[in-house]
């Protein structure tokens, strides 16, 4: 017949069990925080991506991308002509002035 454990040994066993339980709880808590953070970040990324496709949600003009398909040049400033105007003594073919 086994002898009953000594009280000191029983206490150590209980304390060890408590430490294991607390380590497990900490791991669960840490994992939960990471999952929560990842979910929030993922929601923000996907939300920003798909906001575009929802009617009624559009970017302010200042943050919109201009020049795509406008045929009037792209970003980077006003574009110069291939050649600057040159003086000529010949008669004009047309006239530029205010209207």
């Amino acid at each position: 017949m086994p002898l009953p454990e000594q009280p000191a040994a029983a206490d150590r066993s209980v304390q060890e069990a408590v430490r294991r339980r607390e380590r497990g709880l900490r791991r669960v808590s840490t994992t939960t925080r990471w999952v929560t953070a990842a979910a929030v970040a993922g929601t923000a990324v996907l939300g920003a991506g798909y906001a575009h496709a929802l009617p009624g949600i559009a970017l302010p003009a200042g943050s919109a991308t201009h020049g795509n398909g406008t045929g009037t040049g792209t970003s980077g400033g006003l574009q110069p002509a291939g050649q600057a105007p040159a003086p000529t003594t010949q008669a004009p073919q047309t006239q530029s002035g205010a209207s």
Partner: protein
Amino acid sequence: MSATLPARAEPATAVFSALGTTAVLLTADPARADDALLILRAELAAIDAACSRFRPDSELSRANATAGTGPVPVSALLAEAVEAALRAAELTDGAVDPTVGPAVVALGYDRTFAQVAARRPEDTAPSTGPATGPRPAAGWGTVRWDPVLRLLRLPAGTTLDLGATAKALAADRAARRAAAAVGCGVLVNLGGDLSAAGEPPDGGWRVAIADDHAAPDAGPGRPVVSIRDGGLATSGTAVRTWRRGGRTLHHIVDPVTGDVPPPVWRTVSVAAGSCVDANTATTAALVLGERAPGWLRGTALPARLVRTDGSVLCLGAWPADGGDR
């Protein structure tokens, strides 16, 4: 022994009224002029139907009527015009702003200019109410624009006026399309805003610079330049004017004040890669006033500015008046 080369024919010229101004089409190969003219007329009709603020049935007027409500989908052409206007605002830091519509109307330019000019001054005198004074623009940043879905939303009380860029855009589009279709050089001139595309005639396109695009030949004193491609625009404060409240007003409005800018420049001409860019620069220069030379130098675009006293300032690669005489 020397061979005599056959003289090349001068470009064919067509002149007609459109968009409330004068349209001129030059076609380097006269045999292709009729086809080029058809393309230009179609382009002008499309721009007018999309961008006119004087036609209640235009797409722009219908979009303006939705201000303060939900977004409205727009056609590819109006989208291109909106993009050009917003880009102009961005590149000029708001000096050229499409939300000046209410400001222009508040100054009395609330119908076609022919009707404004025909109106008696007393009919345009401002009342004492605060709503008829200068009205600063809401600012282009308040416009919500989705370039992918082509959805436009305007805040309440705001309307777009694409006058600073739509005519130039029409010139660019028409010149490019016509030149590609007829296979020769084409120059489109809409009220003094020019766009050239394709192979130009020998020596380039010869353009006289004047205060008024419709002024008769002013003689040998006016400068003449040649261009080969891109755009050339001239804006001024001496044309398209009207009287109101004892003041002479014009169509160039400072978005910040909602009023005409202080008179510094009578005329500004700029050459650029497109007519839209050229016209953006000329309009901005008139609004910026004394700050215009510094800003124009930053763009590196050739420019010619005429002060209200008639003195001329040439910037960048713009040739001095009489430089090749």
